[in-house]
């Protein structure tokens, strides 16, 4: 067996296991003596190794209890348990608590919270219902702009106290007649000045409202209705109780729907406002006529520009 020339201290262990001091070669003995004091120390170490190897403890004395094995195996099983079972166990514990009597407070709080949330959601959805539906075209009835809202005729106005005495009714009838006359006069003048709107004029009583001036004609119609209503009231004046009529002698003058339409009040009951209104209407009619004239001019120029003959003539001349 080939031996190494150089030994390290740690390699003495190999020599201690294999050979006694007497069996060592010269070079091995020299090497051992460089690290140990001599034979005694070498033999003491060799003896120690022998004793150590022989002094193994009795196997029966050093064996673990069966409970240790059971414990570690249980730890292994618990560690390898599927996670979803743990999750289900937690859910089960939540749904079926052992101490159910202690859960009524949180259960009540949760139920209250759920009720508040449900109510809030229901209110929000009910208030927000219209936007969820499709658009629905609905026909909206619009009151005609110039038509009086209150009924006309024998029924008195609700806003103003109706005239009760005969004198008042007569005065009111006269004023309404003047107003109608003024309106008719204005209308006649307008139609005379604008022959394009109509050539024949009929009597005011039987006036048929022309389509060119609907507003003015309607005023006349309403005024006439007011006059008729006033006449009816005069005929029925005898039936009005005198005592009741005295109570309203100090009341404000009668205001009718036609009066509202014509801006008719006590201050302008003399016809000033009606005249001013007629002047304003005349101005308005003049503006309309001027506008109609400019439109006709534009129409004629457009027809010339679009005439193919004229265009062909101009292009040939060019």
């Amino acid at each position, binding site marked *: 067996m080939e031996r190494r020339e150089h030994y390290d201290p740690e390699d003495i262990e190999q020599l201690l296991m294999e050979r006694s001091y007497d069996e060592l070669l010269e070079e091995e003995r020299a090497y051992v003596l460089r690290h140990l004091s001599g034979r005694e120390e070498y033999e003491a170490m060799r003896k120690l190794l022998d004793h150590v190897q022989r002094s193994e403890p009795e196997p029966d004395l050093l064996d673990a209890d069966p409970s240790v094995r059971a414990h*570690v195996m249980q730890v292994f099983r618990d560690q390898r348990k599927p996670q979803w079972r743990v999750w289900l166990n937690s859910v089960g514990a939540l749904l079926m608590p052992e101490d159910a009597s202690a859960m009524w407070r949180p259960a009540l709080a949760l139920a209250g919270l759920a009720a508040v949330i449900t109510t809030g959601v229901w209110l929000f959805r009910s208030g927000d219902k219209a936007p969820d539906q499709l658009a629905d075209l609905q026909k909206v009835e619009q009151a005609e702009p110039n038509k009086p809202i209150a009924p006309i005729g024998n029924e008195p106005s609700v806003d103003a106290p109706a005239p009760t005495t005969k004198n008042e009714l007569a005065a009111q009838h006269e004023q309404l007649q003047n107003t109608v006359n003024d309106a008719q006069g204005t209308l006649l003048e307008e139609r005379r000045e604008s022959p394009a709107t109509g050539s024949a004029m009929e009597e005011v009583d039987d006036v048929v409202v022309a389509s060119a001036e609907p507003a003015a004609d309607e005023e006349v119609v309403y005024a006439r209705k007011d006059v008729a209503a006033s006449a009816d009231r005069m005929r029925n004046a005898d039936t009005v109780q005198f005592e009741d009529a005295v109570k309203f002698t100090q009341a404000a003058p009668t205001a009718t729907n036609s009066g509202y339409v014509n801006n008719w009040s006590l201050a302008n009951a003399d016809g000033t406002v009606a005249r001013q209104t007629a002047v304003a209407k005349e101005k308005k009619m003049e503006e309309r006529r001027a506008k109609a004239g400019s439109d006709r001019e534009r129409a004629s120029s457009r027809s010339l520009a679009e005439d193919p003959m004229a265009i062909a003539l101009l292009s040939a001349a060019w």
Partner: protein
Amino acid sequence: MAFFRTDLNGLSDERLMELVVRGDERAFGALYDRYRRKLLTYFHRMLWQDRERAQDFMQDLFAKIAQRPESYDPARPFSTWLYSVANNMCKNEYRREEVRRTAAPRLKAETDHVQAIHGDGVDRANFRERLDVELDKLDPDHKATFVMRYHEDLAIKEIAVAFGCSEGTVKSRLFYTLKKLAARLKEFDPKALHQTQAPLSGRSDDGTT
């Protein structure tokens, strides 16, 4: 089902550990049965021959393996890894014991254990007890190296891997530990060794006898 079961006794430690990582309970049981006595003996020697404490430590060690089997590095031999874990547990216990002793010094006179054993014959039980007492006085690393080498029959290479040091360091620790113990246990009669003429087991470097 038993018909399809493989014989786990023929599998290596590393293969069993692979099965443990996959959740094989039988493989874990087989590993426990293989190492329970070795580890119990190791802890018994390292922890002042306290059997109960050694058993607790062995239980803790296998519980750690059961909880985190993936911490095992398959590139290393299982036995080496197992003893390195056990050695670290012992080191921690040494530190805790040091704190305990500082807080409440032991009244027990250690000299009771260091009674000289006189006589020509070698009482193995007495020698073992005396050896354990002397081992407890050593540095923990030297003690663990000695126990692994001569009690657990680990190769020097395996001990080096378990400690994370070179093989030369392991050999040096063994040499000086032997020298120190031989000096402290010199009252044992060397003649008995000569009389028996029993050749020392030719333990090679890889731990085989």
